[in-house]
């Protein structure tokens, strides 16, 4: 099993940490993982993206030109990464701020209204966990126990009290996921 994922959005959306929690959970589940962020000035107020690979085998390239899954959180990222999803792959997006919906016919497309929901519930800090939940619903690569451990490892100790909330957000995300095109 190898799952190659791109997560892309605005700098402030917690893209990198979502990838990190996913990657750490993978480690806990005894998988090989790689987490490759975009870095540098493009991050200052701009977009951010991270490639996460989770695999049973040694990972070859941490840098990829196509992905099993793309998690897309703003329009720029949609423009950039929709085309990079493998045929038959998965695209999950948050419709908030999306002006042009995905148009590919050869991939599975799901939307998740995480921004709206998070705003509603005053949970914007863990908006990214809702999205992660949506992804995990489709690709249950790691089990809840290891996600818990992953959260423990990736959050600083002083934030460990927030783990239950994070887990709840993940569960919420699972329920929010809406199929738009299923092949």
């Amino acid at each position, binding site marked *: 099993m190898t799952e190659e994922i791109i997560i892309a959005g605005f700098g402030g959306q917690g893209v990198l940490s979502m990838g990190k929690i996913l990657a750490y959970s993978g480690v806990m589940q005894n998988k090989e*993982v790689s*987490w490759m*962020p975009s870095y540098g000035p493009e991050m200052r107020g701009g977009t951010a993206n991270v490639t996460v690979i989770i695999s049973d085998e040694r*990972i*070859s390239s*941490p*840098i*990829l*030109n196509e992905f099993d899954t793309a998690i897309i959180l703003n329009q720029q990222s949609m423009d950039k990464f929709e085309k990079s999803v493998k045929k038959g792959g998965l695209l999950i997006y948050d419709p908030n701020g999306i002006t042009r919906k995905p148009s590919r016919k050869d991939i599975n497309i799901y939307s998740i209204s995480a921004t709206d929901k998070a705003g509603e519930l005053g949970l914007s800090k863990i908006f990214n966990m809702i999205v992660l939940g949506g992804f995990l619903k489709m690709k249950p690569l790691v089990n809840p126990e290891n996600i818990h451990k992953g959260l423990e490892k990736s959050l600083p100790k002083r934030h460990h009290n927030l783990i239950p909330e994070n887990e709840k957000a993940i569960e919420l995300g699972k329920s929010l996921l809406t199929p738009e095109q299923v092949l």
Partner: protein
Amino acid sequence: MGELRLMKGNEAVAEAAIRAGCDGYFGYPITPQSEILEYLMMAKPYETTGMVVLQAESEVASINMLYGGGGTGKMVMTSSSSPGISLMQEGITYMAGAELPALLVNVVRGGPGLGTIQPSQADYFQAVKGGGHGDYKLIVLAPASVQEMCDFVKLGFDLAFKYRNPAMILSDGAIGQMMEKVNLFDPIPRRTNEELISQCPWAATGKKKERDHIIITSLDLDPAGQEKVNLKLQAKYKQMEENEVRFEEIQCDDAEYLFVAFGLSARICQKSIELAREKGIKIGLFRPITLYPFPTKQIAALAKKVKGMLVVEMNAGQMIEDVRLSAGNQIKIEHYGRFGGIIPTPDEVVRALEQKIIGG
């Protein structure tokens, strides 16, 4: 045994330094490697192992701090990225000339000049041919994973002390910034001063009654003396060439073609192999791990078996010269490069293979 963590390449370097028993880190911030100093400052090893960590006023100061520390037998290191490493060239050739051990980490970014902060491999020539003046060599290790960022810190120190020669880890911004699983080796205690003095009798540690005073220098005003220094260095380099070549062969057994690539490029080529083999192209990867000493013999041997080699580098063609010098001009050897911070994708590498080697 060991400890498993998910870490950035830069963090792995810093943690490995502490665990390797490093005595001192001296460095100056520069993207994309500032996390090394930041991690160390956060970890405060001066309160645990006693390792000194100092932010220097510049890269010139850093490398000369290394010269000082290395000259007294201490296990010292610095890290920087391309422009900072260029500033260190005088200090580096001094250290090579004075035969001092030290570890330098270059997390390469796109050049020339201020360039860009994205990853690159365009400092190959500088690292292996000598960016400084005179005939000298660095031991150059090219990690391709975060695990190797960790392991090569220890290996780099070992080789540096074995040969009394500066060693360099030639990494890049991507490997520095990406996170992977790392199996951290168990901490090795820092040598006591007494251990150091007995292990490094050549080091300036304060003149003892029973021995002559020690002089650390790279100067010999008498050219005959300076030629002797050079002959000694050349003999040492020959030793390294015989004993320290490291490389990795992936799917070379049945290969008709080869990628030759180091570091991040080698990782990308691994994916390209998957893609190419799906198309029925029998291709393998030869990855030099030590860029100096270069795996000349191994490439010469492979050149007798394969039809062509594509050298993939994130530069305009640097290691290809060493590949050609090793392989001769009987088979087709071409270069595929992206530069200035652009990383080639696995599929474009396969296309380049088809166009330049198989088709061409």
